[in-house]
Every structure is written in structure tokens, then in C-alpha cells.
């Protein structure tokens, strides 16, 4: 792995920390397995790229991207809360619909923003750290987002959100409106994901309608690796795990990419990545037997069941 590859892994890793935080909000805090993110990631990219090409300031364009993501999350929440569509399906519907919406927004499948002002070019004109400029900006954003999520989850509304995800019946008895909490949480989660998409498009110089493929998988992998490393006893550790897990996952991919010297061929990349991550999680499982079983108490399944029961 060269310095460039290392910087690249940190860049994409810190960027996907935002996706991991998004998935933490929906899957963990809200107990809502949200598949919207595969659509809201390219949505953020599409909106901010279209806005930048349309002459908006890149910071405002990024903000538009986040707003659009929040709206997408709100729609998923609405489908679930107001119309009683099961949470998994609600997310799938939004994700599918967003493909068309993104094409409409960009007017075509692939919209370059090369040579335009982006938040990265703005930052680099102030702090020029060469190869590491993007990494520094993304580190600030990822840690900032992590701290804001930490803070938010400790406010009264944030506590309500956690209660609503943890035990809806109890929360309702305490006067918390579960529906409103779902809408709020989903909006925040997808705004985070769209922020990641906006930044990815600006970093990469192009927004593409297919770039959301695999967002959920990468984000989940990051979340779980983070939990394997740090656990999730406190919000602070869990969100820190999102950031670290995302970077570690990308380092694993960079490692798989540079593994060519042991006879590995290009088509083996995904396999190598999967094996490396599996080995890492198995290592943690061995240790986990001593009192950290919550690690594999995976809410993806439990959440779906709970919601099924809540449908009638």
C-alpha cells in the first residue's frame, strides 16, 4: 500500500463514516432497518452536483443535498408510520423510486463537476496539505457529525428517539410520540447519508446514478466492524466505532487491492475483502464470549419481526 492508497482509504473511509452514522441512527437507535440509503447517497450527489453545475456555492449545494436526503428519509418514515407499510419495504420503495428521481434531477445518468468549485477545492485553498487535504476536511466533518449525533442523542428529543427505538410501548406510555420520532430519526439518518453522497460526488468530480449500489452493505460492514472493535456500551463509543469501523473496512479493501503479489487476480477483489472482514469479525467473536454477547444481537432481524407484529 502506497501513501496515495493509504490516503485514498482514509478519504473513502471517513466519508463512509457518515454512512455508518446514518445506519447507526436508523438500524441501532431507531431500530428501523432502512434501505433508503442506497438511494439517498446518490440523491445527495445528484442534488449537489446539479446545484453546483447550476452555479450555486458548493456549501449551499451540499446543504441542498442534505435537505433532499432528509426529505427522502421523511418519505420512507411516512410510508411506514402513516400508511403502515413494513419498514423494510418502505425503504425498498424509496430506494427504487429515488433511482428515477435522481435521473430527473441530473437530467442524465452521469453529471461531471470537474473544474467546478467544490467544498474540497475551497478547503484546499485555505489549508493546503497536499495529498492529505481531503482527508483532513473529511476527518473534521466525520468527527463533527459524530459529536453532533452524540450531543443530539443526549437532548430531550434524542432521548425520546432512543426510548422509542428501544421500547416503543414504554416510550408511548411516557408520552413520546413514536411516529414523530421515526420521521425525525429517518430524516436525520438520510440527511447524513446524502451528505456523504454530496461530498463523494465533489471529491470524485462526478455524480453517477449507479453510485449508490452497495452503500448499505458498506455502511453495515463499517458499523459492525466498529462495534467489534469498540463495543457499543455508550453512544460515544458506538459512534466512534462507526468512524473507526468505516476507515478499517476501507483499509481492508486497500489491503485486498494491494494483495496482487501473492497471485491474486483482479476478479478476486470482493472475495478477498469478504474473507479479510470475516476473519476480523471471527477474531472478535472469540473474545466476545466473555460477556460481550450484545455484539451479535443483530437488530436487522429483530427489528423486522417487531414491526411485523406491530402491523395489525
Amino acid at each position, binding site marked *: *500500500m*502506497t501513501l496515495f492508497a493509504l490516503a485514498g482509504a482514509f478519504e473513502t473511509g471517513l466519508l463512509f463514516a457518515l454512512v455508518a452514522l446514518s445506519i447507526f441512527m436508523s438500524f441501532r437507535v431507531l431500530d428501523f432497518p432502512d434501505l433508503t440509503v442506497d438511494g439517498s447517497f446518490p440523491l445527495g450527489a445528484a442534488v449537489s452536483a446539479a446545484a453546483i453545475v447550476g452555479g450555486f456555492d458548493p456549501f449551499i449545494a451540499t446543504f441542498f443535498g442534505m435537505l433532499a436526503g432528509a426529505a427522502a428519509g421523511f418519505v420512507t418514515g411516512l410510508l411506514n408510520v402513516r400508511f403502515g407499510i413494513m419498514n423494510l419495504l418502505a425503504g425498498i420503495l424509496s430506494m427504487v423510486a429515488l433511482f428515477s428521481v435522481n435521473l430527473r434531477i441530473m437530467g442524465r445518468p*452521469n453529471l461531471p463537476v470537474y473544474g467546478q468549485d467544490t467544498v474540497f477545492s475551497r478547503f484546499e485553498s485555505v489549508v493546503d496539505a497536499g495529498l492529505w487535504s481531503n482527508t483532513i476536511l473529511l476527518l473534521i466533518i466525520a468527527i463533527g457529525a459524530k459529536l453532533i449525533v452524540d450531543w443530539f442523542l443526549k437532548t430531550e428529543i434524542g432521548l425520546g428517539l432512543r426510548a422509542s427505538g428501544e421500547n416503543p410501548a414504554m416510550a408511548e406510555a411516557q408520552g413520546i410520540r413514536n411516529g414523530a420520532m421515526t420521521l425525525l430519526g429517518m430524516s436525520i439518518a438520510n440527511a447524513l447519508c446524502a451528505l456523504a453522497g454530496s461530498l463523494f460526488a465533489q471529491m470524485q468530480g462526478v455524480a453517477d446514478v449507479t453510485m449508490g449500489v452497495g452503500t448499505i452493505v458498506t455502511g453495515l460492514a463499517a458499523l459492525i466492524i466498529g462495534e467489534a472493535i469498540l463495543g457499543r456500551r455508550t453512544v460515544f463509543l458506538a459512534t466512534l466505532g462507526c468512524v473507526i469501523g468505516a476507515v478499517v473496512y476501507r*483499509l481492508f479493501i*486497500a489491503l485486498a*487491492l494491494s494483495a496482487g503479489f501473492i497471485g491474486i487476480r483482479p476478479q478476486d*477483489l470482493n472475495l478477498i475483502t469478504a474473507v479479510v472482514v470475516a476473519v*476480523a469479525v471471527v477474531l472478535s467473536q472469540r473474545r*466476545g464470549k466473555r460477556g460481550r454477547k450484545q455484539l451479535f444481537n443483530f437488530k436487522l432481524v429483530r427489528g423486522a419481526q417487531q414491526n411485523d407484529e406491530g402491523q395489525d
Partner: protein
Amino acid sequence: MLSFKKAVLATAAVAAIAGFSAPVLAQDSDEKTVAITYIVEHPALDAVREGIIESLAEKGYTEGDNLTVVARSAQGNMTTQTQIASEFAGLKPDVAVGISTPSAQALKNSMGDTPVIFAAVTDPVAAGLVENPEHPEANITGTSDKQPPKPALELIQSLVPGAKTIGVIYNPGEANSVVQVDEIKAAAGELGLEVVDSPAAQSTMVPDAARNLVGKADAILLPTDNSVISVLEAIVTVGERAKLPVFTTDTDSVERGAVAALGFNYAEMGKVTGDMVAEILAGKTPSEIAVVVPGNQDLFLNMKAAEAMGITVPDSVKNSAKKVIE
């Protein structure tokens, strides 16, 4: 827990150490390195890659001898594609080659001073790779697979007499396909043909998109769309049942059951791209090399498919074909 943390750190450290030492490329002036990346495994893209390596061998750059080839597939994932681009930036090869639009865009964004050659990009201008294809302004040039669609439409007119409406199946999410479909529509207008489009956002939606054209179109013309061509057989099946002839602009499709294709083969494109790479290795800069759409359009015919879809092929057309499958 701690030991896992250590394990991860150790892995990362090993990765860093192994990595920092592993790809130390030979810096001898007569030993060259070419780094090739492509978005996904695909017959056309693979053919380009092989063509490049073949052409380099003809020019005296033999892999394993005086040439190191680093090939990386993004396996269909754009994020991985950007990471491959950063890996290449660190490798500092003599030339970086991006096969497909997203691969070329990722390289353009990260390679800095390293010359970049792209291949199989339908519209390099719309993709933001070059502004003037005759004199590329940045450190990037390459080959485009943009084909004028008019000859293909004229071929359909000659093989399907009385054809009025042409059906087109494509993935609206593929930038290359949208460009091609727009051009097909423009050319069809000039020839007095109508175009019905039937979008399919994924490969699994292609069979329905094909059935949707039955009764609406007199023939189907497929652009070189990755999602569509990958399930060509499904369209051929519909075409045979409904006597709706299927034409493509991808010559490999003819062996897979399309009636005819007017296009160039991607191995040829790979050779032209390889020639460009060789020119760069010999000291030229990308701005000195114009973007090329390689070769003439060759006709490939499948007589069995023609019969199954109810077409009689005149001898004059048959004789002009570069390859006829009986």
C-alpha cells in the same frame, strides 16, 4: 476485545508495511508499467484489455519482460473504483488506462501528472474527460466507442422491408446508453423511422422491457448497454417467439443470437488504445493525441437467428458481411 484491537492494528500495520515495500516498481528507464482499471468484468471491456496488452506486445513491450501490467477491477462498485484510482496514483505507473466511463473519470480525478488513456467511453466530452477531442487539453486522451447509428438503421430498413418503428431497450442509468439512444432517435428522424423506447433499470427488468415492444415495434435495435447486453438471450427469446428481429451495435451479440450487428469489435478498440499507450511510453503526451473512434463498422450476420425471426437476408447484404454465422 483488546486483542482484536491489536489484531486490527497489526493487520493495518502489516498492510502498510507489505504495501510500502510490495509495489516498488522497477524504476529502470527501459522497464515500463501500465496500470489498467475497469468498472466491471464484461466481455467487451475484457476484450479491450486483452487488445491493449496484445498491441503493446506487438510494439515490443512484453508483459513480464520489459512491461509490468497492473490490472484492477472495481467489481461494479464506484467507491472501490475511486480507491483503485488512489492506489494507481501511489503506484505512479508510466500510463494509467481506464476502460469504461466511470473508470476513466476516477483516474482523471486522481492521477495528477501521470498520463491517462481511456477506452470504451461513448461520449468523452459529456463525461467531462476532454473538452476538445481533437486536441485534449489535459493529461488524458483515449478511444471512444461512439458509433454513428444511421448505418445500423439503414441495415434494418434493408433487412426488414416496411419497418416503421424501431424498439430500443436500454438502462436509463447508463450514461453511455442514453447518449446512444438520443443519437438513434435523431438518426431515425432523418430516415423517417419512429423510435419506441423501453427502459430497463436492471438486467432483471430486460425481459419485460422486450415483451413490452411486441406489437409496438417492427424491429429492435440495442445500444451497447451493459445491463441489456448481459441478458441478450432473454431478448432473443422474445424476438424469436414474436418474430421481432433483434439487431445490436455489439458484434459479439451476433454469436449469442442477434440477427445482425453493425459495429466494431472491442478487441480492435483495445489494439487502437494499446497503440496510444505505446506512443505515450515512447514519450508523447496525451494532448498530442486526438481522441479516436476506431475502425469502420463491420457487419456480423447470424443466418439461423434471421430465419427464426422471420427475415430473408439478400445475398448482397450477406456478401458484405465480415462474418456470417450459419
